[in-house]
């Protein structure tokens, strides 16, 4: 088992390396010279050239990449052009709100979507199934910003129940923090809920068609117990896998949701950095997000190796 875990972990390394190459090339091959931007409008060509040399931009690309990646491995993601702060510090400063938001969204998703999907599968081809599936398609189709603004319009502006925008740390005022988080988490969770409900339904339907379900019935299992004890554990693998893939949706969603609700998280940081052409920050953030994605999926796979008896070593 340990061997499999080590192997699986090792396989994440080349993936991260390729991500690094893509991110590096994207930013180096795009027009616009970092040194020119960094030096500011008033700089002379000589100053820019000096900056280029000091930043290592006169080196061949492979060498630049090696230098950069060596730093990254040691946790040095470079320095922001705008604020002159280390990128890793910038990310660390802004991580809190985003983590809170993502966590709430995942909890809401799992609590709502899995039961809904299971219900739809259990009542396959009835109006329940139809309603759940329609809601799911709706969730896929409405852009997150429209949902965000709609929620804001109803709950904050018309009804005045919840704050319009902004973020309060739960360390400062837990109650206010929750009130500020409700709408953003719902906005963020919507597309994930749609996805998870769908996958729960379809993988349950597939499991319900398998032979061992017939065996479970032949033993005298009532329908609900069969769903709970036999079908769901077998459908768990695709559901959890999709939650892992859903991390990508979550990250994209964070960028939009933080924009709509004006939350000072890393989503906002990303957009600000891109609009300001703050290359090192953009680079660092893309690597960071990819790392999160690969890491979460790695954790999920390792969980399977430990939990699922069918995976052998």
């Amino acid at each position, binding site marked *: 088992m340990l061997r499999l875990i080590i192997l699986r972990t090792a396989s994440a390394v080349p993936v991260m390396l390729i991500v690094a190459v893509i991110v590096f090339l994207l930013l180096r091959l795009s027009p616009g010279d970092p040194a020119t931007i960094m030096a500011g409008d008033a700089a002379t060509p000589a100053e820019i050239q000096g900056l280029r040399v000091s930043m290592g931009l006169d080196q061949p690309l492979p060498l630049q990449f090696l230098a950069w990646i060596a730093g990254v491995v040691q946790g040095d993601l470079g320095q922001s052009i705008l604020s002159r702060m280390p990128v890793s510090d910038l990310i660390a400063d802004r991580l809190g709100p985003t983590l809170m938001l993502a966590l709430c969204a995942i909890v809401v998703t799992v609590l709502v979507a899995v039961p809904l999907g299971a219900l739809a599968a259990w009542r396959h081809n009835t109006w329940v199934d139809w309603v759940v599936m329609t809601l799911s398609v709706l969730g896929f189709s409405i852009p997150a910003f429209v949902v965000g603004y709609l929620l804001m319009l109803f709950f904050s502006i018309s009804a005045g129940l919840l704050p319009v925008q902004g973020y309060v740390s739960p360390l400062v005022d837990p109650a206010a923090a929750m009130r500020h988080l409700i709408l953003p988490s719902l906005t963020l969770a919507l597309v994930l809920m749609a996805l998870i409900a769908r996958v729960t339904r379809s993988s349950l339907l597939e499991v319900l068609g398998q032979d*061992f379900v*017939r*065996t479970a*019935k*032949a*033993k005298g299992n009532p329908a609900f117990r069969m769903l709970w004890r036999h079908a769901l*554990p077998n459908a768990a693998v695709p559901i959890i896998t999709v939650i892992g893939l859903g991390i990508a949706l979550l990250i994209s969603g964070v960028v939009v949701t933080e924009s709509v609700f004006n939350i000072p998280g890393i989503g906002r940081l990303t957009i600000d950095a891109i609009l300001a052409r703050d290359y090192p920050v953009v680079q660092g953030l893309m690597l960071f997000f990819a790392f999160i994605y690969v890491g979460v999926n790695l954790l999920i796979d390792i969980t399977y190796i430990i939990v699922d*008896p*069918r995976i052998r*070593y």
Partner: protein
Amino acid sequence: MTASSSTDVPILKISDLSVALPYGLDRAYAVEGISLSVRPREIACVVGESGSGKSVTASVVMGLLPNALRLAGGSIKLEGEEIGGAPEARMNALRGNRMAMIFQEPLTALNPVMRLGDQIAEVLALHRKEMGKTAVRKRVLELMEDVRLPSPETIYGRYPHQISGGQRQRVMIAMALAMEPALIIADEPTTALDVTTQAQILQLFRELLVKHDSAILMITHDFGVVADVADHVTVMQHGRVVESGKPDQVLGNPQHAYTRELIAAVPRLRYLPDLEPAMPMLEVKDLHLTYRQAGWIRKSQAVHALAGVSFSLAPRQTLGIVGESGSGKSTLAKAVLGFETPSSGQILFCKQDLFSLSQTALAGTRHRIQMIFQDPYSSLNPRRRIGQSLVEGPMRHGKSSAEARRRAVELLELVGLHPSSMDRFPHEFSGGQRQRLCIARALALEPDVIVADEAVSALDVTVQAQVLELFKSLQSELGFAMLFITHDLRVASNICNRIAVMSRGKIVEMGEAREIFENPQNAYTRELLAALPGSELR
């Protein structure tokens, strides 16, 4: 054997039962007006070919009909209680408790992520809620002991994929026995098992029947099994009962034409003479094939799929390769066809070593060895017309389109199909017809050797007999050599001149067919022959 007196109240009594098929299929009822009964301590067999409605009969008693099927009339009485159309709650109380079911494929019938012991224990948890945890565990271990599972303590914590097929079926049986039900329904319980395992399981049924005082309704397609275990036989065709009675009566003196046809089609041991020694067409010399589960971290594990196999095959000769699952017979077929590369050894085709040929030379030679597979449904590209499938190969090897089509039509007639089949799609044909199409496709390339891997195993007995006849007549007309791979010794005896018995990657015995069957030298061969069901049918 345990002939029970006819005054006993039947445990199961089905009368005039009909099950409706959804509108729009080729017939209105899956079963129509059938009646049968099962008495205590009796094994009642229902025999029939695919589509006879025998499995539907099993499902309807258990209340496990697929959604599309509907109970249309008649009555089902379990121990005197009417259960046809009983409410779900009542059926749940009866299922697993007074009646239990064993399925054909134990691997898929067991929950893959639940420990085996827990799966047996669940039956007790459902129906005997007052039992404590330790009592349940003790009972489960007892049951495992009863069905002769080795070291029950270990198997209790195992998962289905970790034990053998025979052991899985024993777990299923233990599960069925847990509540000592009055009736056990077994749907093809030994079909997925090897012949030696099948013999053991059938023996087990017999013993358990006496010990646990149950009755068994067994669904099967195999007259050998019927002859061995049945106390009562019901023959079904197209959803109706055509004949029923005591086995010696039905098997010995069948009244209905269909029963006679079925029994006549059961392959019996019949031998073809060996041929005069001739120049071999195909020679296999000391073939080894080792699968290595490679990895730079885990230890590499070697699986010896083929461990030194040698034989030769002459024109017009058929060599049967028989063995149980895992014996390496299919790997051998794949190696001969070039789908597996052996680790060492030679395959000489017309004196040429296939593995020393260049890519282009191989492409020019390879098509002279053709293949026929087990599953007639996936052997033809479902999206291409029969004509397209038949001319594809010949045109690749230099025939003109017109020439290839003309030959394809001839071949269709040769295998007994109408020339109009050229423009039809595979789904329009039955299993037996598709197998004929596959034979035609193989023959279109004028092969010198045909490798038939379980080519008749998926077919019903009557169709099987016809296809075997077809092979024989085509071989005498066209003169190809054939490597006939099968798990079925009777089928092999019908078509092979020589037989090689394989076990664990080796040929343990090889010789003229009659010699192998009548005077086996090897212990394993003797074991295989002894396990053949239905000795009365020889």
